[in-house]
């Protein structure tokens, strides 16, 4: 794994500051801004190239990544979620006239940063297959039924304690073309914007005791034990009596370094 280059953040061409300050915008925009950078990715992140996942072979860079310091660009990010992302959709089972088929489940948990602080007010976007493993998507050609009462799309925002909760049905497994007899384990796609461009995360949540996880090229792009960070656990406390099974899934985003840097 790449290490953050200790010297990089103070190195820059000696001509840079003076030349830039004579630029069109003048001094106001060039007031130094205190930046507390986010930590680099940890060893649990997958490589872009994972040959067993065939789709990655031609879509992963061969050149090394260029390590750069974070600037205001990377430590800011969109936060007008209501306007950008449309209204909240926390219950995927009530978007149509009837109830969808399948096992009703409640997914809840917290979004935290690496410093174990809750990440409040961040958007989580959700999409998933229906209980038969079929997506409402024109390019999903698997011969499993669509459910007229299920789209499989949601969006929630974490509260002040970083908590989120949504209601859905357990998605089915489905076959795919990665290799002979390949099946994706049941999973829910989760997309998080986080507080900054640098904290963006898209992951997939898996279900405990699913035997397909062990033979799935996408899940296996993440080595054990880190793969287990993507597996929710069954939770009797969030299970609602006579209504729905509860699963808990905490999501951890990149956290800030301990020390701010200031010019």
């Amino acid at each position: 794994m790449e290490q953050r280059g200790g010297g990089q953040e103070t190195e820059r061409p000696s001509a840079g500051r003076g030349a830039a300050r004579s630029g069109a915008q003048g001094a106001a925009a060039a007031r130094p801004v205190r930046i507390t950078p986010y930590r680099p990715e940890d060893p649990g992140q997958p490589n872009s190239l994972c040959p067993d996942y065939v789709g990655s072979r031609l879509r992963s860079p061969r050149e090394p990544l260029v390590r750069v310091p974070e600037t205001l660009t990377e430590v800011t990010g969109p936060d007008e979620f209501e306007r950008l992302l449309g209204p909240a959709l926390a219950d995927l089972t009530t978007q149509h006239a009837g109830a969808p088929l399948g096992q009703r489940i409640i997914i809840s948990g917290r979004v935290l940063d690496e410093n174990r602080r809750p990440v409040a007010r961040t958007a989580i976007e959700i999409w998933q297959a229906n209980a038969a493993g079929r997506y409402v998507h024109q390019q999903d050609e698997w011969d499993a039924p669509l459910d007229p009462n299920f789209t499989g799309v949601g969006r929630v925002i974490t509260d002040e304690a970083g908590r989120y909760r949504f209601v859905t049905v357990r998605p089915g497994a489905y076959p795919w073309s990665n290799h002979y007899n390949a099946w994706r384990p049941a999973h829910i796609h989760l997309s998080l914007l986080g507080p900054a461009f640098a904290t963006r995360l898209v992951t997939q949540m898996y279900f405990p005791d699913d035997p397909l996880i062990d033979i799935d090229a996408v899940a296996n792009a993440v080595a054990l034990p880190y793969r287990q960070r993507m597996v929710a656990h069954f939770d009797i406390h969030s299970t609602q009596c006579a209504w729905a099974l509860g699963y808990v899934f905490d999501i951890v985003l990149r956290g800030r370094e301990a020390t701010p840097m200031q010019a």
Partner: protein
Amino acid sequence: MGDPSRMADNQSPELFGQTPWQTVGPYFHLRLPWRGGADLIGGSQAGAPELMPPGQLQREPAASSATSGRRIEIVGRVLDGQAAPVPDALLEIWQANAAGRYVCAADPRGELPLEAGFSGFGRAASAPDGSFRFLTIMPGRVPDPHGALQGPHLAVGVLGRGLLKRLVTRIYFEGEAGNDTDPILALVPPRRRGTLIARRIAQAPGGAPASYRFDVRLQGEGETVFFAY
């Protein structure tokens, strides 16, 4: 129940850490892109190919608008290691407004103006020929942590089927002041800097936005520079 270490998730102190990235897969159109999502100026439906059957839930966020700043269009294609188009990629952009301010509470420069209707964030799903198109404004220049102004740029995230994690890059603009002294570009090997600079497309004079071309080459000849931080 098996090996206890395999039962741990992010609730357990010994395994606590970053949730790993996973690909968005081929069906992200269900949720991530939206009609108008690639248009930060407002007035068009750019951003989302029609891959959802009619009658399904569609997201209808408020329209974007920006009235100040130079209007620009960025067109390009996403290409794989054999220079074949990538029809299931998603590009995300994040940029400052025309005054060089980010629409985000983490930008402390309250003296710079905000503009209602301009968020600085956009998404475009690639089309079957790998193409995408953003409509936006030329971002103002923002300082680096040392106070030096960076060249005008967009932060770009590239996601898609086959991409296990996001690739991040930047779009700079041909001919803009500040590219020569930009501290991030200066860290890129000179022979590869050109992959980060959108080229001006010649066009007839008139009121149309200035048009730029920026291709994303995920692998191989002319591979786009991707960053780590």
